[in-house]
């Protein structure tokens, strides 16, 4: 492999410190709602938690609802393995996240907002509360009737799924609901709710400050803007990086790999494993480009070098899913258990290697029948690992 280091362009929008938050907010709040919605829609911003739903549309749908009580929720239940960007954003530029929530509240008419913070990040609470108090003073000055509270999670990955998060906030088990209805009409306490990822809200601040065009200038068709990536694993430079969407995995590996990269897990345990032979053909973004495939991601990029056993990696993911499955629907509850048991049995030689194909079929069934994204996405990492590293599953 060549050793020439090619560096991807670093973007500095999200973390750039901004003292004039109040002025930006004053200007944004003085605009007509329709103008703000248009700006958000035109920016092409898509949800940065991983699912990639157009943010402007979410705001618009909730704004159109005639219900009196509405909510704005910031999803800070960052639990996907390999993701840690939301904590950095919340601790370094909380005012941008809060400003995004406030503008959303203004156009939707919500008067109450929550930050659902995962229990693992409880240490952030004192600092964050201080920021919220300061922010409330700003809102009072600007005359916006909106209050934000922190709601703390208690160690459940599934609560990052929006409807499970509502259940959790309602004092119940974090079990996902059936969809539709979607949160924009029936969310927290069955009221219209905008629920956005931390990073999405911070980006909305950038868009309101600089306009949609500046955001659109970054990235590629269908995948506009920049994205904060959490880089970990076998890399000399682990950490948080804001990069443009649309790069290939090869570009990424040239920059962040250790020269011996065997595979990259894009999007955490629920995402896809990209083997070396596909690096050049795979882009990071939301939609398929003309050639190759494009992978959406919440920003988790885990790098594995040739010293890593892909069996161990898959075993670790399945152990994770088996524990974090809420247990509500059978395909996911039993499926995760059987997948874990199955790959262990093949490895020990208790099942023939053809059993791996049966397990692949099981993941397909889970994809079709599981109630929420957790059970549906187990197939992603399972099939991309088993297809590309079958021999490592067996020997």
């Amino acid at each position, binding site marked *: 492999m060549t050793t020439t280091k090619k560096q991807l362009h670093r973007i500095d929008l999200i973390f750039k410190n901004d003292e004039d938050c109040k002025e930006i907010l004053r200007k944004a709040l003085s605009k007509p709602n329709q103008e703000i919605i248009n700006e958000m829609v035109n920016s092409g911003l898509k949800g940065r938690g991983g699912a990639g739903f157009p943010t402007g549309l979410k705001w618009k749908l909730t704004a159109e609802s005639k219900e009196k009580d509405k909510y704005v929720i910031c999803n800070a239940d960052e639990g996907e393995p390999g993701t840690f960007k939301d904590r950095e954003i919340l601790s370094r530029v909380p005012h941008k996240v809060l400003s995004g929530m406030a503008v959303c509240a203004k156009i939707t008419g919500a008067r109450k907002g929550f930050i659902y913070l995962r229990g693992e990040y409880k*240490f952030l609470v004192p600092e964050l509360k201080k920021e919220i108090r300061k922010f409330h003073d700003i809102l009072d000055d600007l005359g916006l009737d909106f209050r934000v509270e922190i709601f703390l999670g*208690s160690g*459940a990955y599934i609560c990052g799924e929006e409807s499970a998060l509502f259940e959790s906030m309602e*004092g119940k*088990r974090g079990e996902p609901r059936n969809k539709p209805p979607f949160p924009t009409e029936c969310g927290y306490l069955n009221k219209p709710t905008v629920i956005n990822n931390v990073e999405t809200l911070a980006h909305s601040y950038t868009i309101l400050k600089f306009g949609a065009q500046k955001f659109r200038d970054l990235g590629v068709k269908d995948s506009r803007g920049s994205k904060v990536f959490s880089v*970990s694993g076998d890399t000399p430079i682990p950490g948080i990086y804001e990069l443009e969407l649309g790069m290939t995995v090869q570009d990424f590996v040239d920059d962040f790999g250790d020269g011996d990269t065997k595979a990259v897990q894009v999007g955490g345990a629920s995402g896809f494993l990209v083997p070396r032979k596909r690096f050049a053909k795979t882009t990071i973004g939301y939609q398929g480009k003309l050639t190759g495939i494009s992978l959406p991601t919440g920003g988790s990029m*885990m790098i594995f070098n040739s010293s890593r056993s892909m069996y*161990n990696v898959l075993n670790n993911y399945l152990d994770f899913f088996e524990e974090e499955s809420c247990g509500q629907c059978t395909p996911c509850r039993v499926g995760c258990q059987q997948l874990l048991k199955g790959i262990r049995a093949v490895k020990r030689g208790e099942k023939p290697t053809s059993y791996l194909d049966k397990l692949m079929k099981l993941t397909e069934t889970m994809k079709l029948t599981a109630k929420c994204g957790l059970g549906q996405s187990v197939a992603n990492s399972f099939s991309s690992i088993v297809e590309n590293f079958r021999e490592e599953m067996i020997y």
Partner: protein
Amino acid sequence: MDFQEKLVQGLISKYGTDRENLLPILQGVVDQERFLSEDVILKISKAMAIPAAHVYGTASFYSFLDTEPRGKYVIRICKTITCSMKGKNQILLAIENFLKVKVGETTIDKKFTILQTNCLGWCHKAPAMLVNDEVYTELTPENVVDILREYKEEK
């Protein structure tokens, strides 16, 4: 009124009896007692007029709301992929040797419980652990013992 009763009453007067406040109330008890006993669950159920089975159902869903006794300090070591790759097992072994209990167990003096947990979000500084709410990263078998020694020697 015993301590537990006071604790529950205090939390309920702070948060209210609506179902939406159940999680903060359960968290408040765990902050003080490290776990939710059957007694406490019944007290909360009565005070909030929520069936005990529902209170228990909610409590048992969340990994940070323990329903069995835990030590004063709950150590949670991240076992997800990056921490595993970066030496989680050696850290765990060092902790087990130092505290003389296995993962899942509590020391006789009820000071420490060792647990494993899923991704803590410190993959770039792996391996990582929580001691109650406190985060420790870039652990080595040596520095983890130093960290725990401080907790152990504290009165």
